């Protein structure tokens, strides 16, 4: 756990550097987190997907899988990798202020 200043507010992060409390999130924080992930500008399309992540998390308690995003018509996998290069599930979850998605064994 560590707190730091981001987008003008103090935010707590867990050991994986994901936000400790997803309710403290706002779009300005998301834009900063996106920068940290190497995404320069957060487009409306990014925001749309990030919002979907948050809604899923709030309704079922976990972030959606890439397969689910594709299957339910939210975003095709190809586009998702273009929007969040190098690990879309993890990056989108971090930008959405959620916990690190659990890998399966």
């Amino acid at each position, binding site marked *: 756990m560590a707190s730091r200043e981001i987008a003008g507010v103090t935010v707590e992060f867990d050991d994986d550097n994901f936000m400790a409390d997803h309710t403290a999130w706002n779009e300005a924080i998301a834009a900063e987190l996106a920068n940290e992930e190497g995404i320069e500008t957060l487009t409306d399309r990014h925001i749309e997907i990030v919002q979907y992540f948050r809604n899923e998390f709030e309704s079922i308690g976990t972030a959606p*899988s*890439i*397969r689910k995003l594709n299957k339910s018509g939210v975003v095709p*996998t190809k586009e998702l*990798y273009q929007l969040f290069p*190098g690990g879309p599930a993890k990056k989108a979850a971090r930008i959405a202020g959620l916990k690190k998605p659990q*890998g*399966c*064994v």
Partner: protein
Amino acid sequence: MKKLVILGAGTAGTMMLNKLEPVLDKDEWKITIVDQFETHYYQPGFLFIPFGIYTPKDVVKPKRDFFPTGIEAIQSRIEIIEPDKNQVKLENGTVLNYDFLIVATGSKINPAETEGMKEDMWRKNIFDFYTIEGTTALSKFLKYWEGGKMVVNIAEMPIKCPVAPLEFVFLADWWFTEQGIRDKVDIEFVTPLPGAFTKPKASQVFGDFLDKKNIKLMPDFNIARVDHENNKIVSWEETTVDYDLLVTIPTNMGDDVIERSGMGDELNFIPTNKQTLQSDKWENVFVLGDATNLPSSKAGSVAHFQADILFDNIQSAMDGRPLKAKYDGHANCYIESGFGKGILIDFNYDTEPLPGKFPLPGVGPFSLLEETKMNHYGKMMFRWMYWNLLLKGAELPIESEMLMAGKRA
């Protein structure tokens, strides 16, 4: 008469049948088990077939050998489960009503989920070893292969027996050495995981083994398609890996019947309470083994530990009592590492595989996360235990709850 229906007579269903049959009152309960096939496959044995260690006949027995008398066994494909009506329809026209249902329909590979995989070159230079057909075809191919580049790729997590692909490359390294062609073979392990395995300590240990055995590791590779005309796999980010021989672990999914019945998630796995094994949606439905969406490994040993928990909970449910037994995610896997040695890992939801000793009364101790001959014997002994103890529902000398004794944190 009250009715208990078990769907799937694989590892989990058969084991549960044999545990419950002796304890349920015969005047009160009728037990029915359904499976589409006549033959039971010892799936862990599929790993050894390409390398001539087992032949197909070493891994099969008739399912009926494991059914106790006095129960009803039906061979038919399951058409649809209708949990809101407490009934199951079979392809042969039978409609089964139930008071309690145990779903143990397992998981299977779906190569058609990846573009270009199940096309012209399927089982010509693209093989799986997760089915009897795949592993047999691969063994015939390898017999005459003179070398080249072998790529072993995991399409997508989760897969059943997540260590099997590593075991496959370890054994391949040994086998090509035995054949005298190791210098003509390049082996590359291409995985969507960030390292050789999911959990940090084990990932590092296995990563070192890959290095030592001169097997190349390509992490973070998420396959988008197979370019079977040019012998390349291509990731979503357009990274490519060439191969001469592709051994794939295709996307693993629950059976289509789960999708038809509207009971599953996007991979047809059934949302299940990770401690009690009750379905999240239906109180009188329990799920066991690979068919669940639990974040535990999909393995026979896991099905066994879960069965101990389900045994208690389903009886409580039948008596209208609260479900008290809780599954902790315990898994225990022997990993073949080649040259007559093996590695053992033991872990649960919260504790990653740790080094140390694993006490096993009468036989052990086994070394954890370390390569030993003893662990290899453990793996080979597992087949005997599987047929003679596990499927018959007998007690194994291993606790269903993970123990910290012997582990070094």
